[in-house]
């Protein structure tokens, strides 16, 4: 049964107030360190080709699935530290942790790698907990989570060997990788500490660079807290030929398997020639608010979801 609107919105008010505070504190955190807040287009002619992210169409263009490409174009033009809150849209993504329209926080630093972005994330989450007067240990869904850095790091390889009995970096199987991640690997993460899940198989590198001393994996890491997939960090790929090849393969697979055309973002690819070494990360703001509001559904941190809009 669908809850009536007025009692629902009254019930959500403390969470929405907390959400506003969190967004304000995030801005303080970044501007205090000299980051520039930027805004990039929500509606765009082409999005990054991704097999498992389907964009919503808008008059022949697309609604943004992520601000990543435009933010990197700013870095390529000489911007050094930027952050953005952006509305992203992903078709069909609806569940306890998903709404097809959601808020992503992305930030980038030139001269940095994924480790630096993860340090930023530790500092950001800890700062928020402190400013929300929750201290360094928070309570989420009846469990205490110690946020004290450094957060334990677990390689993707080791996590799969332990929880699923195979090494995805040695012989990658995309379908098995995704299924095992949600059914075996994530459930095995410590419930009392954040987890840095790092060094994804090169086949799942996405827009991250390959690790120089271990070419089977990419410098990509995700942050999980209490089973929530919170953030995804890269040492950004700056090689335009390699990026073009990855996008072309992904685009071909999308067309072959889903019959969907995914053009290549040419301006972005061209800008990579000027992109300096940099790190970037995308963090799901709705889930961060869930964590600090101790709620187990994204519906409780959004005034209106796709079902109540």
């Amino acid at each position: 049964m669908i809850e009536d609107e007025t009692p629902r919105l009254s019930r959500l008010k403390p969470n929405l107030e907390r959400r506003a505070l969190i967004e304000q504190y995030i801005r303080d955190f970044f501007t205090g360190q000299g980051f520039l807040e930027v805004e990039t287009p929500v509606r765009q002619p082409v999005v990054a080709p991704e097999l498992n992210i389907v964009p919503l169409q808008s008059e022949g263009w697309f609604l943004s699935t992520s601000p990543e490409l435009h933010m990197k174009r700013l870095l390529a033009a000489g911007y050094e530290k930027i952050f953005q809150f952006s509305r992203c849209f992903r078709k069909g993504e609806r569940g306890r942790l998903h709404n097809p329209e959601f808020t992503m926080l992305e930030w980038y630093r030139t001269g940095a790698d994924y480790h630096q972005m993860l340090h930023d994330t530790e500092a950001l989450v800890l700062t928020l907990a402190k400013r929300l007067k929750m201290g360094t240990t928070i309570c989420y869904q009846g469990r205490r989570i110690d946020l004290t850095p450094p957060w334990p790091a677990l390689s993707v390889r080791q996590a799969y060997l332990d929880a699923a009995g195979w090494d995805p970096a040695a012989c990658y199987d995309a379908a098995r990788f995704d299924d095992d991640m949600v059914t075996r690997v994530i459930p095995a993460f410590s419930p009392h500490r954040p987890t840095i899940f790092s060094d994804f198989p090169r086949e799942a590198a996405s827009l991250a660079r390959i690790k120089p001393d271990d070419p089977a994996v990419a410098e990509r890491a995700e942050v999980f807290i209490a089973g929530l997939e919170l953030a995804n960090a890269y040492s950004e790929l700056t090689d335009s030929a390699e990026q073009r090849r990855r996008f072309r393969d992904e685009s071909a697979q999308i067309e072959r398997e889903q019959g969907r055309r995914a053009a290549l973002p040419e301006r972005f690819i061209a800008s990579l020639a000027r992109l300096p070494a940099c790190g970037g990360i995308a963090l799901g703001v709705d889930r961060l608010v869930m964590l600090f509001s101790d709620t187990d559904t994204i519906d409780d941190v959004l005034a209106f979801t796709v079902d109540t809009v």
Partner: protein
Amino acid sequence: MNIEEVHKGSKLLIDGTPYNVDIADFVKPGKGRAIYRLKLRNLLDGSNLERTYHSGEKADEVSISTQECQYLYKEDDRYIFMNSDTFEQFFIPESLLGNKVSFLKEGTVVTVMMMGDRPLDVNIPNFVELKVLESAVATRSDTVTAQMKDAVLETGHTIGVPVFIKEGDIIKIDTRTGSYVERVNVKK
């Protein structure tokens, strides 16, 4: 139907058996493929099943017809209904009706979902009016403190009602929540 369209309450045919989707859980790693975890309830025997689907997969929807029927009477644990169009009579076991029997009075018109000639589920009206058979007279302290007391309905079910309700009153009940709505004035 596409798995993306399946939601809580969808009725699926799996290996020839009809199931109700009790929980449809969407899980997806950010860059990974979506997984749909369904918790299903067998509509024939009430047993549970869990199934996992992926984007692009299909699920068979049960072809269901609905019929307006009138509840006639109860015989052991069988509830006898009559099809309002054909006047044909058939029974539905108590196990299929669950707690809906609490609000089922002889003569009530309901909607029965059928797979072929097999009843699968019964939708009772959202609001029903039932007579109060027994209810304790409110004591003085009741009127000061508690706002509710128990009342036994003509179906034998007990619910909480305000203290001013008396035996013989007809009250309106929301069957979705099982709660008292209001006293109905009976014209006689």
